[in-house]
């Protein structure tokens, strides 16, 4: 098991997350066409491409700098609701993790908790509103009960986020551009929730892969 990752490892985990997002743009576009304005894919593409550029062009001194750089890149390149939301989310990791040079499972769980709080504060949405919070909130809860081991925490968070995406299908949107759909939003998953799930899934796989490579 990958118990923790150093700065290079965290960087690799983020690169994997960016790659996974960039591979799933069409999926996100279609999800947002169904219940939003169709731009979530292109927004995430801009944001995660900028994050990847940040990761490729900088030598972060600590884990916090990675979270801050990725969040900042997404916030300024994505724009839209998801730029602010995912930017705020990742930047919260900088505050919770700070200048640590290792990231373990407890650190990641703390980040998810801080990220959730920051997102809720910024956007005013709550669980059940059919937003990425409905993937993040269960992920944060699962992570906080999954111990110290990073791989285990990530696996738990990713699984919970995936279930969260499923759960958004049966929610009626109360926030964002899907709000006026009312009952017509039923049956469709929330695009932002899908994005969070992709990120956590890619990170979990990267951490598992990092283990395999160093085992």
């Amino acid at each position, binding site marked *: 098991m990958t118990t923790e990752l150093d700065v290079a490892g965290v960087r690799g985990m983020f690169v994997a997350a960016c790659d996974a997002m960039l591979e799933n743009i069409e999926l996100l576009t279609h999800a947002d066409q169904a219940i939003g304005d169709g731009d979530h894919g292109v927004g995430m593409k801009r944001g995660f491409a900028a994050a990847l550029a940040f990761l490729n062009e900088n030598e972060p001194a600590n884990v916090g700098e990675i979270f801050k750089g990725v969040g900042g890149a997404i*916030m300024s390149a994505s724009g*839209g609701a998801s730029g602010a939301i995912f930017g705020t989310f990742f930047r919260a990791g900088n505050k919770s993790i700070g200048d640590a040079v290792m990231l373990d499972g407890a650190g990641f769980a703390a980040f998810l908790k801080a990220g959730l709080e920051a997102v809720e504060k910024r956007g005013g949405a709550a669980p059940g509103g059919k937003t990425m919070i409905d993937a993040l909130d269960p992920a944060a809860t699962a992570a906080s009960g999954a111990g110290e081991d990073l791989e285990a925490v990530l696996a738990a968070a990713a699984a919970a986020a995936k279930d969260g995406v499923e759960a958004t299908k049966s929610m009626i949107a109360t926030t964002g551009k899907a*709000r*006026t759909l009312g009952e017509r939003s039923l049956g469709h998953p929330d695009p932002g929730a899908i994005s969070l799930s992709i990120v956590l899934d890619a990170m979990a796989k990267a951490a598992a892969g990092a283990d395999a490579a160093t085992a």
Partner: protein
Amino acid sequence: MRRVKKILNDPAKVVEETLEGMNLAGDGATRLLPGNIIVADREKTDKPALLIGGGSGHEPMFAGYVGPGLADGAVCGQVFAAPSPDAIVAATKAVDCGKGVLYVYGNYSGDNMNFDIGAELADEDENIATRTVRVRDDVAAAPVERMDDRRGIAGDFFVIKVAGAASEAVDTLEELHRIAAKAEANTRSIGIAVSAGSIPETGEPTFELGEDEIEIGMGAHGEPGAKRQKLAPADEIVDQMMDLLLADLPFKKGDEVALLINNLGSSTPMELFVANRRVRARLADAGITVHRTEVGPFITSQEMAGYSITLMRLDDELKGYLDAPASSLAYSN
């Protein structure tokens, strides 16, 4: 899925190229700053400034309304996506004359969050005071008890026009905020659509409507409205719209209003004028007089076919600012 046919270069650069073209069309009246910001090119005077903005794809909104008597600047996001906080801060710095900056934009969670972060940064890093008016004119988006869940559509224009004129006349940001908030509180809109627009980068229509279907209450990004129904004669459609609109503020006998019929994209001007005929008949029936009418593309939604009707209830103060001179790419007075 059917791909929409457009005459563009690289769709990923469409916002940058659009703003370049808009700035050039001003023939020197505006300047283009990094971050997709257009500002009026004039001497800074000692006044509270007006910054507007939001996602692109609604041209001429927002960059078309920058100039004397209108906004001091516009900060533009990507298509249908709010601008980022750092662009908002840069625009805030560019327009501030030392008396602070009023933000006017449509009430969407993306805009709200990004402008709020921008405002926090402007305060913390630049020491610039800001106030905000979010336009919530779309009566189809939520019942009146939940005004904060309503989105901003063509009513943006009236609030911007009033705030732009007021910003030339008043001395403090508070006073400017009061007037713009009054304009916002008195503005209501309702939109309809018969066919979809598309985002250049995806090239796909953002929704599908049946051959004989119309969506009542359609939002400016193709967000769904109050209901989907069969297409009917124009007078019936306008009646449905007016029923929703008049009941909402509510507008009452003796009220004087400004009227805006906004083309969401590819409706023919004929359809808008045919609608105006019925709108005026309904207003006359209700004992409401029209002080001023605007008809045309004010806030589009790419090539969506449809239109919206906006009413702003006037008092002498609002009327004065609405009639005040203004000059910009998309609106002169």
